[in-house]
């Protein structure tokens, strides 16, 4: 089990508090020296290697696999196909509850999408397994796949995202449009995108009777445990998942995927530990993606530039066999004040893997379209884009009328614009060139992401030697949970980080829920905080009931726990060390648990969102169309900032992803075959360092008394929103060309 224990003292530790300090990553030295063990590193003696054979058609069925050829290949131990795959206790297509997705676990010969696993070859070496998979030379009965948003007539899905309604309206959009003096209508398209975490999905599985140990990257160990328990018909507590470090997840590791489970099945089949790591191309299909969208807007505004109507209709795609519908319209619920809002979603079914959560699911696709439409409306009103956004600033959440629990967006606009120098922006496009003759454009976008909470538990222990322990099954996807949650843990126990042992990343620890929805720090942190408070309360009980303690009888005054001492809140000259309290009470340690979840009363009363404003400068070659982002400034308000260094890094990462969204990412698929054309990092473009501009992330102070006990809103996803739109708007401003098909590539600017 991974832990970070009693290691180096942090730099710049402020007396008595870890939260708010810009600590460097506590796991940094492990990672840069190669000592951090990722899932695929856990290769014990006797471990076999598995390789997937995946379908090269998108629809139909497998009619033949040359199992004999694969088995005859030197080193091949077994070939797992639908004929011999271990029986499962539950069909992979069963959905016993709503938040579960269908899987391809060799249940039959049907092919539902390209790259669907159709067999697993298990061998003594990776090379033998891979060649064995090739030698299976599958034959198919292929049907013509249906691909793309025009594949068939659209329908209205019963729910979008995680069960949100597909249609939400407020006011009368037709009346609003009729009353408007300015109107625009525009349609934007966003492509399918794939997560492409640096670390591919990897699994090392071993069985001991009916007990499964699985090393695999997970953003939700407890849910994965539940899924595995159902499929294998064993108790969840018989399953141990170890996931101390993830090389990125971005939503693709939120739910355990089919291939990870195939590794468990393979290990069961051969009775030995099995390691399976997806090849890059095999991550295009069975582990989720962001579905394509076509988003149509109608906006109206009055003479003062105030919106009278906002209609946002999304067409998206899910797989033929399961339901996940990109909730792109959500951003229009919350961002701009309008007396009439209508948000609708429709969908088609296509022969691809099931789309799933991808960093800022819904918000990312919706934001680039909405921010472009808002820019077009501002232009139609003859207003500066920032002036227009301020004129339509939402004082309450537009769709619900609820007040915001906090909203420092105005400050984000002000500070971002100031740092960027927005006021010097010429209104008209194609006005500015740099010294080299390149067109220069400036654009902006508003960032938004909901402040969510899930459920988490944690355990705290204070020991007589003055050290403490916090345990929670939290997940570090690279965002810095080891560090940020460690800071919350140290403060929760009132000790320095150098006195804290912190354990996470294992399913044997208390359930920390899911690292998703930008809610992990708030949720797991909330549980840690509660556990710390609970153990401190026990300690205070001991002290106040102990006549030998300077805190004797001080129960009503309350306490401050800091630096391993308990202080009377009203008189800090009266204090006592934890170790003294415990020693006198004859206690080796105190333990307590804590949990955190949504406060239903607050959720009912308030709209809770983080906000931000992003400003972008692009340069475009006037003849050749090549685009480069040269500056990005984002100002974000997201409640309490636990670690400003890590948060800044999250914003940078999000903003770069926004640039990737606007200019690069696009999963190219041959519509005739349903196969991918760029399922590799050479040709599925994300920005390289040379594309990455000078960036500034401004942390705007925001206090939120309602969102959760710690006032944390989450920062993991918001950076994408706003950024992609800001860049699209800057490209328009540079060139005068409005590209409504994302990504914006040079061929679309040649005129």
């Amino acid at each position, binding site marked *: 089990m991974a832990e970070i224990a009693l290691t180096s003292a942090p730099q710049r530790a402020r007396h008595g508090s870890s939260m708010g300090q810009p600590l460097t990553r506590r796991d940094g030295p492990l990672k840069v020296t190669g000592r951090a063990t990722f899932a695929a590193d856990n290769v014990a003696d006797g471990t076999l290697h598995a390789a997937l054979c995946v379908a090269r058609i998108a629809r139909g069925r497998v009619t033949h696999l040359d199992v004999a050829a694969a088995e005859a290949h030197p080193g091949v131990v077994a070939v797992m196909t639908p004929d011999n795959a271990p029986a499962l206790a539950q069909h992979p297509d069963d959905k016993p509850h709503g938040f579960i997705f269908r899987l391809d676990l060799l249940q039959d010969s049907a092919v539902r999408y390209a790259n669907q696993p159709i067999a697993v070859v298990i061998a003594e070496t990776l090379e033998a397994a891979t060649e064995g998979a090739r030698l299976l030379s599958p034959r198919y009965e292929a049907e013509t796949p249906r691909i793309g948003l025009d594949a068939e007539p659209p329908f209205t899905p019963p729910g979008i995202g995680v069960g949100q309604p597909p249609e939400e309206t407020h006011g009368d959009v037709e009346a609003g449009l009729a009353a408007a003096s300015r109107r625009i209508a525009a349609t934007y398209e966003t492509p399918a995108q794939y997560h492409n975490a640096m670390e591919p999905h990897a699994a090392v599985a071993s069985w001991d009777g009916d007990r499964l140990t699985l090393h695999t990257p997970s953003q939700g160990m407890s849910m994965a445990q539940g899924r595995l328990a159902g499929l294998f018909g064993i108790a969840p507590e018989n399953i141990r998942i170890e996931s101390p470090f993830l090389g990125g997840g971005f939503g693709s590791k939120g739910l355990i995927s089919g291939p990870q489970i195939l590794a468990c099945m393979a290990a069961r089949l051969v009775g030995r530990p099995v390691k399976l790591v997806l090849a890059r*191309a095999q991550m295009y299909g069975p582990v989720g993606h962001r579905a394509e969208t076509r988003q149509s807007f109608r906006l109206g505004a009055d003479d003062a530039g105030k919106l009278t109507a906002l209609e946002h209709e999304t067409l998206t795609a899910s797989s033929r066999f399961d339901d996940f519908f990109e909730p792109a319209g959500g951003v229009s619920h919350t961002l701009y004040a309008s007396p009439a809002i209508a948000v609708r979603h429709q969908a088609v079914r296509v022969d691809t893997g099931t789309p799933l959560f991808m960093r800022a699911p819904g918000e990312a696709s919706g934001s680039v379209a909405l921010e472009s439409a808002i820019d077009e409306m501002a232009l139609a009103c003859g207003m500066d884009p920032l002036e227009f956004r301020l004129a339509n600033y939402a004082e309450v959440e537009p769709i619900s009328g609820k007040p915001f629990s906090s909203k420092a967006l105005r400050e984000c606009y002000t500070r971002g614009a100031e740092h960027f120098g927005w006021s010097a922006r010429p209104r008209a496009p194609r006005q500015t060139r740099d010294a080299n*003759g390149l067109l220069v454009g400036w654009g902006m976008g508003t960032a938004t992401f909901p402040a969510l909470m899930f459920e988490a538990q944690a355990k705290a222990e204070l020991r007589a030697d003055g050290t403490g322990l916090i345990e929670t099954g939290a997940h570090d996807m690279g965002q810095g949970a080891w560090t940020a949650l460690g800071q919350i843990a140290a403060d929760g126990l009132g000790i320095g980080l150098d006195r804290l042992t912190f354990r996470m990343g294992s399913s044997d620890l208390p359930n920390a829920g899911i690292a998703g929805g930008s809610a992990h720090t708030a949720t797991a942190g909330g549980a840690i905080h509660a556990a710390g408070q609970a153990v401190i309360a026990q300690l205070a009980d001991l002290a106040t009931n102990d006549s030998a303690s300077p805190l004797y009888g001080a129960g009503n005054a309350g306490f401050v726990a800091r630096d391993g001492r308990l202080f009377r809140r009203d008189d800090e000259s009266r204090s006592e060390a934890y170790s003294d309290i415990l020693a006198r009470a004859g206690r080796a340690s105190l333990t307590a648990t804590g949990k955190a979840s949504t406060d239903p009363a607050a959720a009912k009363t308030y709209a809770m969102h983080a906000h931000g404003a992003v400003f972008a400068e692009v340069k475009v070659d006037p003849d050749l169309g090549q685009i480069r982002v040269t500056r990005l400034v984002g100002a974000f308000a997201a409640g309490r900032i636990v670690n400003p260094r890590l948060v800044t890094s999250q914003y940078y990462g999000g903003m770069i992803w926004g640039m990737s969204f606007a200019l690069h990412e696009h999963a190219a698929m041959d519509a005739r075959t349903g196969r991918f054309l760029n399922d590799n990092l050479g040709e599925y473009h994300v920005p390289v360092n*040379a594309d990455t501009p000078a960036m500034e992330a401004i942390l705007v102070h925001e206090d939120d008394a309602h969102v959760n006990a710690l006032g944390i809103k989450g920062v993991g996803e918001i950076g994408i929103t706003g950024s992609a739109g800001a860049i699209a708007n800057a490209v328009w401003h540079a060139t005068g060309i409005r590209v409504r098909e994302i990504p914006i590539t040079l061929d679309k600017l040649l005129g």
Partner: protein
Amino acid sequence: MNLFDYTRPASVAEAIAAAQAPGAAYLGAGTNLLDLMKGGVVTPARLVDVTRLPGLDRIEFLDDGGVRIGALVRNSDLAHDPRFAKTYPAVAEALLAGASAQLRNAATAAGNLMQRTRCPYFADATSPCNKRAPGSGCAAIGGATRLHAVLGWSEHCIATNPSDFCVPLAAFDAVVEIEGAGGRRAVALVDFHRLPGDAPERETDLAPGELIVAVRLPPEAAGFSAHARYLKVRDRTSYAFAVVSAAAGLRLNGDRIGEARLALGGVALKPWRAREAEHLLAGQAPDPDVFRKAADAALAGAKPSGEANVFKIELARRILVRALTLAAAGTPERLPALPASPFAAPFAVPSPSPAGAAHG
């Protein structure tokens, strides 16, 4: 990856002998070959590792004023050789515009000439491809063709050659030195790569078992060093193949062009030497109208191989004009920090809109 024989011969003669076996392939840095093997796209029966062959890793400046680049010289070493970069700046710029730093550190000069097309249908072992499986058809036709050929393609293959390095090599009359069972021979680089015609599986002039031992630039190539550029338009600033690229070299006589060299990349299955355009430029003043006429001449025979690559024809014209403009302005003293990028250097164009103040 299929099971294969691996041999590491000690001499060129041994290598050639080892490569006579059917299904043999030479292994250089493997930056392309190994990827294709992992994808099951190529399945050589034998790899003949030439990376330790003696004497092939030298850059020799010849007495006649030319240069001989050993087959195993790494892309980075060649680009960063001060004398080479000074003498052949467009070649150095092209080398540094290719791939990524890590790949350039590994990739060899001869390997660059031998790299395969990046057509995604070639790389998908399941798709029909006349290059990979002769007679199976061309899946690219009617498919996703944004990066496919606009010159010299056939109904059997519309792929492009992805090399940057080969573009200025074609412009400056590079010669490929080849050794085979029948001895040593030399072939002009422009004749080394073949257009697809009805046999796209024949990609180069090499006979089975023949080995590239060097690439030579003739003495005349150095005559363009004061006015030589490589320009590459791509979808991201680094680590991307050219949408279209161009090498331009000018030898100026006073205010006239004495001689011009021009080649395009990313437009055909071979680096595309634009000789008609070169003839048009000779004797003319280096001005935008002349450049535009030359560009028109270079693309006179172009036709799109798919709807998605119509834009490449006009883009190719524009990049030729820009490359000529940059070459006429003179080779920069230092290689730009972003080699071959439109963002690397100033260019002079008449502004179509009133010039506003430059943003900060």
